[in-house]
Structure formats: C-alpha cells, structure tokens
C-alpha cells in the first residue's frame, strides 16, 4: 500500500480546529478522502487530538459507514430494508455475492468490488434497490445485477 498522505490528514483536522465533538465528522471526512481509514491515520489522529487509539477504534468500529479495511474500486450496497426485503432483496444479495464469489461485507481479492448490506436507503418505493458507488438502481432483477457487474468488470 502507498504511504498515507499525512499532510492531507492534517489539512482535514484543521477544518475542525477548536470545535467540540468532531471525531465522527472527522472520520467521515477522512474516509471520503482515503475511502477507508488506515491504521496510520488512526495513530496520527490519536497523536494530534490527544485521544487514545483504543477510543478512536471503538468509535470507528461502532459505526457501519466507517471502513477499517481497504475497499474495492466499486462499492456495491444492497438495501435490506423491509420494503426491499419483501420484494426479494435477499435473492439479489445472494446472487450478487455468488457472482462476485465473496460474502457480504467482503472485498474481491483483486480489489475491484466490495459488497455490503445496508439497512434501508430510503428508496423503498422502487425496491429491491442497490447502489454502485453513488449510482442508485431501483427495481433490481437478477438480470440487472448481471448487467451492472459486467459493465464494471
């Protein structure tokens, strides 16, 4: 892995200078920069903020949106909200997982895809829903999954 650009980390920390209760916001900002939170970043944060590493880990591991492991180039999220569930979300998830040959919450060995379950994206009208990066797909069928994956592999 490339070395983490700690200057960038400092720059993001500066945004929150002098404010209280910013750790979660800080982690979210760092993640949009690095896509995940590497160990070096946590160590650096710990030094700069004078917060124990364990405390940062506790918070980072509690929240689902924060990735502590590298993620693939494409993040696929399958909505498992109730409305999607009753319209067959489980099938969509199983099928996607079997096509990528990974389990939910895993990343393909070539780092091209990560697959994740998400509890409701709020597009309940067009379930089943999945997102690829920032793109939303509604009324997903198994054929659609096939097409979506093919387009990006």
């Amino acid at each position, binding site marked *: 892995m490339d070395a983490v650009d700690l200057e960038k980390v400092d720059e993001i920390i500066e945004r929150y200078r002098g404010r209280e209760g910013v750790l979660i916001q800080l982690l979210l900002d760092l993640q949009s920069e690095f896509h995940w939170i590497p160990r070096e970043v946590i160590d650096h944060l710990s030094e700069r903020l004078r917060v124990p590493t364990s405390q940062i880990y506790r918070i980072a591991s*509690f929240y689902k949106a924060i990735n502590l492991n590298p993620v693939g180039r494409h993040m696929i999220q399958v909505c498992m909200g109730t*409305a999607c569930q009753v319209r067959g979300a489980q099938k969509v998830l199983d099928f996607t997982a079997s096509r990528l040959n990974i389990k939910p919450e895993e990343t393909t060995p070539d780092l091209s895809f990560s697959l994740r379950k998400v509890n409701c994206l709020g597009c309940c009208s067009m379930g089943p829903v999945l997102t690829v990066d920032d793109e939303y797909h509604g009324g997903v*069928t198994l054929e659609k999954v096939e097409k979506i994956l093919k387009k990006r592999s």
Partner: protein
Amino acid sequence: MMPKLASFRDLEEMREKLRSRRDPSESEMPLITVCAGTGCLALGARKVIDAFREELDERGLATKITLKETGCPGFCEKGPIVVIYPEGIHYVKVNPTDVPEILEETVLNNRLIDRLLYSDPATGARAVHEEEIPFYKHQTRILINNNIKIDPKNIADYIVQGGYSALALALSRMTPQEVIDEVKRSDLRGRGGGGFPTGLKWEAAKRALGTPKYVIVNCDEGDPGAFMDRALMEGNPHSVLEGLVIGAYAVGSEKGFIYVRAEYPLAVQNAKIAIEQARECGLLGEDILGSGFDFDVELHRGAGAFVSGESTALMNALEGKVGEPKPKYVHTSERGLWNRPSLLNNVETWANIPLIINRGAHWFSSIGTERSKGTKIFSLVGKVNNTGLVEVPMGMTLREIIYDIGGGIPGGKKVKGVQTGGPSGGIIPEEHLDTPVDFDRLTSLGSMMGSGSIIVLDEDTCAVDLARYFVDFLCDESCGKCVPCREGLRQMRDILSEIVAGRGEAEDLKTLKEVAGVMKSASLCALGRTAANPVLSTIRHFEEEYVAHIQDQRCPALVCEQLISYFIRPDICIACGLCRENCPQGAISEEESAEETGKVVMAIDQSKCSRCGICFHVCPSKVKAVVRISGKSSAPPVPSASISSGDKEKDSKTR
C-alpha cells in the same frame, strides 16, 4: 445571491419582489419541474434533467423556459415525474428520449402526449393533472405539497411560497410562552414514533434550568421502509429549519443541530445548502430579522447506526462519542446534549410547526382524530400498486390507504397484512384493515405508528420469516450495551432460525414469549423494549403459520428456503434451458419426460439443489414450469400428486 434581511419588513418586501418577478411569468414563461429526489434519481431523473437542459440550450430557449429540479412529491412508483406549468400537466415515467417531444408538443404547442399521462390501471382513464390521479386525490397534503414546486437548493423558492412568515410572526408578535401555548393547543404529537405531546416537551425544555440550551432535528430515519423524513429534508429543508428556529425562540436556545443519517447523502447536501442560505439571508445568526434573537445551526452527519436514532444515543453521537443510549433517569429536556437542556424532535414534527404558527392551533387540531391531530406522512411500500409517500389526515383506515390511494395489490393477490412501525412495530392482519390509523389504535393492535412506514404484505410473505428478518435486523443494530436486548435478540434469532429450517420444537412459542417479556421490561432503551414486537404480533395473529413450520415442516407461503423444494413440471416445460444456464449448482439437466415419450424436459437433481430459487425466477413468465412445494410429503423424488398442494393450486387463483 440573496441580500441580508435585517427586518420583518425586509422579508415581506423581498417576498413581494420575488413574487412580482415571477408572477407575470406564470402566464407567459413556462416552467418545467423534474423531481430530483433520491427515488426519481434512482429511476434515471438525472438523465432526464440533462436532456432537458441540452435541448433547451440547443433550441436557444434556456432564457425563455425555466427548468427546475424539485423535491420529491411522493409518487415514486411512477418516476421520473415531470410537471409542466402553468397548466400543471403531470407526466409519469419520463425517459430522456421523451424530452424533445415534450418540449415540442406540450411546452411549445400545448398539446398533450397521451402515453406519458397517468392512466388508471382499472379504467384506463388518463389523468392530466395531479389532482385527478387517485393516488393524490385522496390525500390531504399540507406538508409535502410544496415539494414539487420548490427547488430545495434555492431559498427564494421557499420564500415565494410564504416561507419564514411563521418565524416572522412568532418573533414579532408572540412571546416564547405564547408559541409554546399554541403548540400545546394544537395537540401535535411527536412524529418520530413515540407520539409524545410536542407542546409538553417544549414546555419542559423551556422550564429546565441551565444554559446553553440546545434544539435538535432528528433526521436519523433508520426505520427500514420509512422515507418521509428524507423527502422533507431533501425536498423542503427550509420548512424544517423554520420550525427549528421557532422552537429555539420558544425554549430560549441559541444553538441547534441537524443530525442526518449517513445513508441520505442528498439530504445532507440540501440541509447544508439550506443552512448556508438561511445564514446569508439573516434568518440564522445574530439578531434574526432585527428581532434581537440569536440562533445558529450546525449539521452533523451520522455514520450508520440504527440505534443512534434514539434520543440519548443521538446526543452521544453529536458529542462525537459512540452512539449508544443512556438511561433516562433525567429527561433529555433537562439534561441532554453535554448535560444541558435539549429539545429533540423528528423532522416531520418540526415541519409542522410553521403551519401551526401560521394557521393556528385551532385549524391544525380540526384535522385528525380525537387524540391524534393533523396529518401524517406514511410511506406506502411493499406489495402495493402505487408505492410512495402518502399524506393523509390521522384516522384514515388502512384499507382506504391501501386501496383508494395505493390502488390495491399487484397481480390481484390478497393482502395478508401490513407491517407498521418498522422493527419496533408489528403486523396487523387483513381483518383489521378497517382500523383508523392513529397513535393509539395501532398500539392497541400490538403494533405502533413508529415513523409511519406501511409495508403491505401479500400471501407470498411468510410471517415467521418476516419476524426472523426483523430480529436479524435488530441483532445487527443492537448496540450490545444491555444484556436483555443483546442476549434476548440472539436467543430469539436462534429459535426462529431453527423454526424456519423445520427444526422447531413445540415449546418454542412459549420460550419466545418468555424472552420477549424480559426484553420488554428490562431493556435500557426503546430499541430493546420494542424489539420483540414483530415476534409477538406475528405469534398473536399468525400462530397457525408457526405451527405449520414446527409441526409439519411446511411453509404455507412457500418462502422458507429449507422447507421448500423446486420442481419442474414436465407437462409445461419447453426445455428452453434458461434454468440450466443459470443454475449455480449445476443441478439441472436435460431428461426425457417420464409422462410423454420423446419429449425433452429439464429436471432438477434434488440432491444438488441449493434452493436458491434462481430457476423459479428465470423461467419465462409465459411458461412458469418451475413450481415450489412445501411440507413433509415433498421429499425427493417429487411425486407429481403433491404438486397440487403447492404452487399449482395457488397459481390457479392468481393467473
């Protein structure tokens, strides 16, 4: 860029100016609005918007015709939605390829395009305007009616529609106590789920000692199946913000927070823009509208934790800590965020405030039932024809909502029940559909209002599997801090997993009820106290399904994977091979039909079949040769007589 409004008069003058600048255009300059809510975007609205923009540029019409990206009007089923003003022509399911025709025919030549109009599935009648469409016709839209008229990224649009007049009224003519009295008189109850009287909460926060005080918008809408808060925050963020500023004035707070969950990126974006624009206009900050009242707001993004929607957990998250609940020995209105008095309300509750101040408590309480006033936005989803957001007066019956507004169940199937209140709610069976929906009636049926999701279930939904789904969901989301919730959920999940696998035991139902009882009385927060509701309500209303799973190893809805077998009917199969191609197990092969010599059919090797159901879904809808059967009698090889107890019987009713 809007100028800073330094007084009440500035606001009114600005409104007049904006209106007069727009008014003549109402008759001359056409306006095209395209819904840019997350739902329509998922269906391709971005491409439609881009196509309009390109086409307008190409024809040199960009200065003569206004194009507006608006919030979500709720009819997500038919998106992307395009409405053309001044006539208000309502087009549904618009494709980018329809755009040149819409411009040429409808916008420039005032001719309708029939195929883009909503057509009633029953009568085939076309509806031109929103108010003719049954989905809208039966609603009372006072909260989401403006979504389709407003560009949420432009504060001027909200001001034109009368925005911030309630704030001006409160600041100029009412004392904080009078604001609270008005809210109390309106009988507004919290829309986040609990239904606690809003006015009382405000009063407690006002009386509480200590400064500073905080006001908080809870937009951590985690209830799976509910998305009204998303639609309001994305589509009309200023209505929420205006409510918040009024609340801050009433309880004496100078600092507010808007907490938006991570899964709603567009809501985060629009809330951020709204805060910035309001600040620019002097509607936030120091000396708001020259009244001497100071107040500002900070946006806080969630990071993906269902339990953080609980009020004390949300306050922990705002402090940058782990979003776990705390015991409420002292109310958060006295000691909340950073141990200071804090007033937290849900998005929809805040959005009601400007309406109550503007039109009065009396008007508000004239809508609804005796103990539940006003309207409620429901998300009508699942197995229903018209899915979307539905705003109705409290007290409308579930049947009216599902049939008159929702247009009934697809495929002519029967309603099995509805799930309300999300994972904390329960299932209400078909025979109770005539119940008027309000806070107290739903609770008396063993469910709850929750944030307002109505998930319609048809006969293809298995009650046991659904209960297991919710327990699974909550296992995932329980923070694990208190034992009854953490361990209770795990035990329930184990028991339910055994039942859906056909390994249930006779005393399981008793054990489930026992565990539920402990969780209800001993859990720390509402998540744990209500977590057993989906299990209890399904046992209460669908006990026979549990019994079928436990005693006969049969899933009556043909859902539970381990209790069903897939079988290809040789008399129907056309041997197209689609199932064989898609079978991940390689369990399907070509065989000669035993019933008809020389006929080649597909057959499933039951020993290899993993019951993934892909063959069932890929079999062409005209053929439908793959059937599911369930029960002890279906052990392989499948005797053809047993088919009649499975899909065949069900199919004859539905096809």
